[in-house]
């Protein structure tokens, strides 16, 4: 039921929504999140604007981990389907990084599943971001404790 893609190419939100909802008349709400490369990515105090970001992943395990996260979302929330697309490779400021879609008869499960999916992707899928600054230097992004706390929230709720 879940569509999962790990790809270097960009995605089109409208096209992915159309693919997820095609031929269905039982969907009342579509929740969506798009993560984007911003100029101050890892830390707002970064010394330099981020010029580019490189996303590394663990081929094989990545798809497996995302599939498990999507399964969890489908078990926890009354959704009719979901889509997760995560880009890898080198991205520039303003580029899309990740797309999460979740569809449901009603808005609340769609919104909840969307938040759950992105929270869990941030902490349970094997991706690593390296920022490249305008001055030519670079640094691996540190994991944020706030992300662990956000994902942990779903454990408490569940």
């Amino acid at each position: 039921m879940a569509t999962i893609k790990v790809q270097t190419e960009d995605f089109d939100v409208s096209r992915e929504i159309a693919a997820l909802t095609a031929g269905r008349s039982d969907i009342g709400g579509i929740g969506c999140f798009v993560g984007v490369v911003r100029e101050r990515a890892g830390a707002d105090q970064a010394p330099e604007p981020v010029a580019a970001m490189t996303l590394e992943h663990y081929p094989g395990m990545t798809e497996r981990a995302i599939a498990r996260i999507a399964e969890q979302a489908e078990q926890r929330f009354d959704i009719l389907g979901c889509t997760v697309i995560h880009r890898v490779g080198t991205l520039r400021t303003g580029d899309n990084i990740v797309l999460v879609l979740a569809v449901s008869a009603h808005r609340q499960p769609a919104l909840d599943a969307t938040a759950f999916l992105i929270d869990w992707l941030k902490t349970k899928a094997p991706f690593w971001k390296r920022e490249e600054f305008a001055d030519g230097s670079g640094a691996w992004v540190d994991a944020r404790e706030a992300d662990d706390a956000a994902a942990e929230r779903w454990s408490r709720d569940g």
Partner: protein
Amino acid sequence: MNAPTTPVTILYFAWIRERVGRSEESLVLPAAIATVADLIDHLAERGGGYASAFVTRRTIRCAVNQEFADQSAAIAPGDEIAFFPPVTGG
């Protein structure tokens, strides 16, 4: 069951890969190595980039056969063992 001479595959990601200087290697496990933690000790003893990569054990995450695992997890010939920092995708 794999024979003791079947190697394990070890994968490195992100800054661990950079410090180690490679992304993948094969290793026939010495008999004394039973867990991920044992393997980390073994690799760190090589010194150089390996010592540097594994210097702070608590920042190392790992997966055994593409599942997240604790450093206490058992490993066996034929396993795929990956080392990486905490994930930062999404």
